[in-house]
């Protein structure tokens, strides 16, 4: 059956959720049970296929694309349907197909106001197709289409099922992202028209990401490279979100329904960082080198700004949203070093952040459901009233602040470490400065997260909730949806090699065109295994 995986599998895994959505359109709205079943089934199918890929994947050749699908699509614009899977996209693909079924399980009895399970679940399935497609696409236009497809369902999820200020938040989310992608598309087009074959000097005129990564911007004058990178920087930077473009994120997160927040944090933010390591850096390494100090600067500003923002928040969900800005700052710092060490750390950080922050938003959703408020001032004593919920919050807080032994640590620590020795051609002193600032950021992170825990979970229960019968401990459906998250946070914490070993060859491959390489990650991974016995 591996032929199936090679020939069609990637298309199937991408469009299985969409097929589920189409099927659901035929089912009348009243039949909510059927909608929930179909959506869960579709996402489970995608997960099953993903696991199959995980088993079948050739790990000794993780650096090159496997299972490549290459069909003609829109010939007039030279865009082809190319998809493939390598060590860089596999962890993120798995993250997407893993998170979605759990979100659907959570949705079983958590359809947000104003109801209409049918549309809500259909939107989430379309979202899943968009996310999977983005991680698999190997053609710039295909990538762009999937990248944009993600936008709409999220817009509607915030706009229709969101909180008080949903109109403002959804518009802001959509316009910011559209603004970024508009310039990104221009960058793609410029790459298309300007890229030349390095040996023959002929114009390539292709959107094929494999080819464009291979030629790595050959034949494009430096000033154009810098501008093209700038366009992509805006597109991906808004999505990440990088510091000056981050303002949509707290609003979107605060207003989005729980499921929306979870997906946004767990997967959507990664589309931006993935774009950097998959497209912007390999295709324009020279420009990446020139931009790296700036990316690093924005990243560390984001780390500190996000942390300070957290300290100022009064709303639990908003606080977690700002912590996302800080965490994605670490990811971007890792990427900005342009070393395989840093980029591996970044990919790890993406997965870890997806699991941990996704989980935190789940908890926030459950707190809101029980207390009908997320105002930190009014909360308290969760460990007394709902001890398990309180402990899970404590666990995730620890993971999020980067406690060694949990997944969060392996995203942050190596990223900081990588900043000590960035790639050749990037000012070392600057990055060492960034390193210090980022390290301060981890202290602040510990500060705001522990403060959050203290104020919400510890102490006596406030009077207004003291005898509230609605405040119950973790329900069964929540256990089912959350347990896999918690398990993976621990697993990747004790055995980070599970991810590092997959990503490293692909990262090395994508960097080796022009950039000097540092020592691999194996050392870190091995040390971790020795320490924690993973």
């Amino acid at each position: 059956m591996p032929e199936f995986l090679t020939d069609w599998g990637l298309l199937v895994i991408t469009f299985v959720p969409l097929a589920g959505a189409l099927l659901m359109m035929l089912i009348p709205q009243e039949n909510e049970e059927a909608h929930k079943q179909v959506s869960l089934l579709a996402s489970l199918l995608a997960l099953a296929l993903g696991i199959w890929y995980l088993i079948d994947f050739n790990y000794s050749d993780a650096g090159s694309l496997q299972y490549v699908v290459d069909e003609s699509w829109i010939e007039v614009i030279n865009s082809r349907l190319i998809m493939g899977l390598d060590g860089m996209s596999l962890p993120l693909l798995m993250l997407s197909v893993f998170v979605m079924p759990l979100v659907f399980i959570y949705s079983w009895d958590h359809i947000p106001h104003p109801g209409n399970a049918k549309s809500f679940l259909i939107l989430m399935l379309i979202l899943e197709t968009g996310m999977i497609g983005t991680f698999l696409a190997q053609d710039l236009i295909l990538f762009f289409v999937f990248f944009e497809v993600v936008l709409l369902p999220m817009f509607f999820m915030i706009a229709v099922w969101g909180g008080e200020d949903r109109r403002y938040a959804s518009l802001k989310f959509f316009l910011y992202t559209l603004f970024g992608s508009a310039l990104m598309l221009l960058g793609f087009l410029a790459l298309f028209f300007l890229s030349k074959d390095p040996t023959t000097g002929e114009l390539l005129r292709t959107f094929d990401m494999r080819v464009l990564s291979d030629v790595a911007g050959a034949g494009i004058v430096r000033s154009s490279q810098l501008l093209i990178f700038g366009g992509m920087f805006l597109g991906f930077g808004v999505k990440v979100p990088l510091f000056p473009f981050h303002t949509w994120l707290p609003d979107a997160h605060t207003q989005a329904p729980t499921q929306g927040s979870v997906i946004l944090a767990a997967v959507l933010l990664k589309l931006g960082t993935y774009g950097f390591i998959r497209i912007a850096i390999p295709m324009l390494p020279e420009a990446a080198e020139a931009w790296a100090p700036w990316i690093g600067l924005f990243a560390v500003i984001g780390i500190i700004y996000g942390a300070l923002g957290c300290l100022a928040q009064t709303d639990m969900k908003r606080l977690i949203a700002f912590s996302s800005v800080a965490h994605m700052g670490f990811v971007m710092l890792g990427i900005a070093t342009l070393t395989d060490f840093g980029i591996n750390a970044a990919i790890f950080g993406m997965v870890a952040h997806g699991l941990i922050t996704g989980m935190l938003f789940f908890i926030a959703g459950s707190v809101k459901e029980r207390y009908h408020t997320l105002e930190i001032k009014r909360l308290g004593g969760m460990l007394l009233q709902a001890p398990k919920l309180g402990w899970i919050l404590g666990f995730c807080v620890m993971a999020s602040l980067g406690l060694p032994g949990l997944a969060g640590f392996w995203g942050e620590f190596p990223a900081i470490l990588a900043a000590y020795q960035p790639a050749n051609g990037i000012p070392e002193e600057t990055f060492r400065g960034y390193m210090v600032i980022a390290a301060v950021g981890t202290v602040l992170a510990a500060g705001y997260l522990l403060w959050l825990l203290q104020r919400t979970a510890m102490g006596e229960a406030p009077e207004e909730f003291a005898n509230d019968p609605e405040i119950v401990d973790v329900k069964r459906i929540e256990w089912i949806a959350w347990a896999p998250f918690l398990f993976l946070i621990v697993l990747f914490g004790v055995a980070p090699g599970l991810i590092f070993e997959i990503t490293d060859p692909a990262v090395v491959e994508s960097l080796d065109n022009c950039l000097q390489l540092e020592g691999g990650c194996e050392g870190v991974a091995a040390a971790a295994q020795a320490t924690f016995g993973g």
Partner: protein
Amino acid sequence: MLAQLDATPVETPEIVWAGLLPLLILSAGALLLVMLRSVVKRLPADVEPHLITAIGPITVLGMWFAAGLAGTDVPLAGLRDDMGEPAFYIGLALVMVLAGTLVRTMEIGLDAAITVGLGLSAFAATWGIWDDRWQVTGPFNAIGDQFAVDGFALLFAGVLAASVVLVALLLDGYLRRESLDGPEMYVLMLLSAAGGIVMTGANDLIVIFLGIETLSIAVYVMAAMHNRRTESQEAGLKYFVLGAFASAFLLYGIAFTYGATGSTNLVDIQIFLSSGQLVDNGLLMAAFGLLLVGFGFKIAAAPFHAWTPDVYQGAPTPVVAFMASAVKAAGFAALLRVFMLGFFSHVDDWRPAIGALAVLTLIVGSVMAIVQSDVKRMLAYSSISHAGFILVGVHAASLAGINSVAFYAVAYTFLVIGSFGVLTVVSGVGDRATSLDDLNGMAKRRPVLAFMFTVFLLAQAGVPLTAGFVAKFEVINAAVDSEFYWLAIVAMLTAVVSAFLYLRIVLSMYLGTADGDAADLGDPIPKAAGLAIGIAFAVTVGFGILPGPLSDLASDALPALIGAG
């Protein structure tokens, strides 16, 4: 003297009737319709439904004849090939029965049915000419060298015919709702479309002027047709006064062109200009400017756009759909033909002017749209910004540029007819309910219509997997290809700004809660209008996912324009 005159008869140009078929069908059909309806005011009640049903099969026959007649040098040769096969007769009979049933279930009026039939036949004729003529022999002239029937003209003629069909479907329910029944609107629309076809194929500035006037005068009247709404009268008058003004500019431009080049024929102008005999081109520059004013008015480009919001708001909504689709498409076709064919050798002289128009139009269209509160006005400004986008394609002045203009014109036709079609249905008696608040809660009252409107609006915003995205993409593609990055950046940024406007409408439909006295109570949608909106929707999504066929068609159409020059 007399004897001498007799000896040298004036040479009359050869007329290729087949090439004129789409034009003939629309204009002769309009005349027949008005004559028929002035003789027979009202048919007996037991005859009319049968007659309407009969329009279906007649249309099928008409389409077949038109395609066959137009498609070959020898009239009816195509027909003879088809005949003789039993399977063919069975198929034809089946299709005719189907068409009859379809017409019956649509509950459509007689005038609208006839107009749709004429539009479809004209469409079939363009199809026939395209298949047979274009690929084999290349462009050919139908009346001397005055009127060209090339791929470019045929593509736009097809767009015009399609918009006649769709708008007629919209008009049927609308006119009945507003108690404006009568053949006048249809007759005017057919005439206007005939004028549009003249514009798309005209190889001579004078012929273009004739086409523009035929097209415009009919539309002026259509805009003022709603005789109980003062806004409609105002719109008609405003459109007429400003339109006449613009025509004067155009005519002046034609005169200047004649002064500078000694001809009004585009091919002659082209030959003269590229020979480099023109030393002092001040007159020609003035001609460019005056012509651009005239065309700029028709396509609603800033700063000649001022009429658009008022006219779009005041005119009957289906008429607006026609203005935004057919009139704009014909205007762009003529603009492209004049500048790409006639003045191509002086591209560096007129390109900056087009670029300035494009930038101004994009900015005005997208920024002014934000502050509007009436959906028709919003869409008016959005149509201005679309004109700006198309101008970016014109500005590229390359094959890719014309390709993108053709694609954009086709895609936009369906988008805009769909959008205004939805507005026609929901705006209630007298077109009153067109403010943003009136759409509040539409998703609850009319979920399907709201969904389709959402798709139309998102397509206008250029969201992938809709025809709107591919259209915008091709335009930007052409601009980047010609290395006009600044223009591409302006276009993309204004596209983001105008996305705000579309999203506002979408949010109103899905989030707002309706007041108690909403004009739109969710009454059943007229079936014909539903069909038109459905077709527009299918095209929008279909060409969004697989734009290949349309794009191929567009690129097939182009070399004619450049090659002829």
